[in-house]
């Protein structure tokens, strides 16, 4: 019954670590760089260096390692599928044959390739979830807004996007909680949510979705009124209480990320 339990991906873990204290813009940029680097790495040596660097960052962030790994749970099926597909179809034809299954041929090259792609996916997910583990949604939105600001002239609604993101992120836990409460209330009235065929199950969702929508609209209304009551009139001329400022540690972090990237590319790059 604890829906929140499985939702560790994208969840903020409050700590006072050096990683948490970095400017959100630094972390967003660093994550972007890392995402590119993980795709540029060409062999296991490169990924190994990358993994070592990432492990160091996780330790430094004080986020429990088990919690980070639990974030992989929702995508284990994707990982497995990737591995299987790569094993059978990833290797070039004419590789060393490991075993045959009818028309399917598993090659040694395919296996290596499969492991490589899977490892790459895992590292990708871990590095992006490290961003959300160590950056509160408000900081994240703030950083995005500042990074997008230069593109405002091109018509990118930076403030509105950031505000929408903040509100959406803010209400995920609220809606999850609300869903859980409504599910329990209907189960207390004998609702049966997890037996029967697909049609029956879909119909069983009605008693949950209707109250959920009603309450979401009610909340949206209340929030709009509360924001206007406090003088919200859009992003124009809006000042902020917490000014983002790059500090020395952001420079150092940037250098470390660039250094690690160079090392990854040099040890196994093109």
């Amino acid at each position, binding site marked *: 019954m604890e829906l929140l339990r499985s939702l560790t991906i994208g969840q903020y873990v409050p700590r006072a670590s050096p990683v948490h204290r970095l400017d959100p813009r630094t972390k967003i940029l660093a994550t972007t760089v890392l995402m590119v680097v993980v795709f540029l790495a060409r062999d296991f040596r490169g990924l190994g260096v990358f993994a070592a660097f990432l492990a160091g960052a996780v330790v430094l962030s004080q986020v429990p390692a088990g919690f980070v790994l639990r974030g992989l749970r929702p995508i284990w099926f994707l990982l497995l599928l990737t591995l299987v597909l790569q094993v059978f179809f990833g290797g070039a034809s004419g590789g060393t044959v490991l075993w045959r299954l009818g028309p399917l041929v598993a090659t040694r090259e395919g296996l290596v390739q499969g492991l490589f792609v899977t490892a790459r996916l895992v590292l990708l997910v871990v590095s992006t979830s490290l961003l959300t583990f160590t950056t509160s949604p408000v900081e994240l939105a703030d950083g995005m807004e500042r990074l997008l600001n230069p593109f405002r002239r091109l018509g990118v609604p930076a403030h509105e996007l950031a505000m929408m993101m903040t509100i959406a992120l803010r209400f995920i836990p609220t809606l999850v909680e609300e869903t859980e409460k409504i599910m329990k209330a209907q189960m207390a009235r*004998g609702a049966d949510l997890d037996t029967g065929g697909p049609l029956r199950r879909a119909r069983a969702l009605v008693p949950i979705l209707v109250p959920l929508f009603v309450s979401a609209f009610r909340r949206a209304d209340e929030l709009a009124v509360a924001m206007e009551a406090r003088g919200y009139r859009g992003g124009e001329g809006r000042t902020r209480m917490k000014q983002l400022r790059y500090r020395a540690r952001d420079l150092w972090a940037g250098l470390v990320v660039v250094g690690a990237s160079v090392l990854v590319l040099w040890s196994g790059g093109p």
Partner: protein
Amino acid sequence: MSDPVVVCEGLTHVYLRGTPFESVALRGVDLVVRRGECLGLVGPTGSGKSTLVQHFNGLLRPTEGRVWVDGVEIRPGTAVVREVRRKVGLLFQYPEHQLFEATVFEDVAFGPRNLGLDPEEVQERVRESLEWVGLDPDRFGPRSPFSLSGGEMRRVAIAGVLAMRPQVLVLDEPTAGLDPEGRREILSRVRDLHRKAALTVVLISHSMDDVARLCQRVVVLHRGQVFLDAPVREAFAQSDRLRSIGLDVPRVTDVLLRLKAAGLPVRCDRLTVEEACEEIVRVLQGNRRWSSSEA
């Protein structure tokens, strides 16, 4: 009167175990709800009241400890849990947020239909439940639940639980957010259900006045543990202990305590206005007799 309906033994519940958000909601709670009683469950916000009652019908599973309902232990297994959900009716906070059907009748019928009853039986139960909460089935039945007032919506939600014909009715702050008229209406309905329909009632409330008026026994939870478990009169006589954890005593008790502090030798274990009046009159008359004999 005295056989137990719900029994909790060493009940411990930990939320989000194994994550950085782990929190212990209940620690080793022992509790017995007896058939036919009205039990008040009080405690500061976050003391575990709502968590505790969700174990009564198997919505939550104990992390440690055991729970019995009507002599049967709640274990994972659909048959037992389904049976328990029928026996223990649980009304959440702000239950009007769970209404979803197009009409009041349909919404109240949701529970009985889930039990697989035939249409006549469903119809009968809906009418009966709506009457119990003081809503005329012919007038309110065809209306949309979303067109009703807050108090009426809440009574529809209560009817929805009553239509399951539970033996135990658990109400989680049934009067929160209602106007005085709505509060009185709900409380007098609950009292009727307890006295006339012989329902076992567990009432979670922040209002000590409501608890004093309705319940025979109080269980106080504090930080997930049973802080006090006593008959109402005894419980509210311990005003200092209650106040030490941020709770209060009923207003009647408060008046008597102040009189006593001012030097009038009243007994403080009176719960209703009438009882308190009698007590004050008794003491004052005693005083007059004493002072006139003196003169």
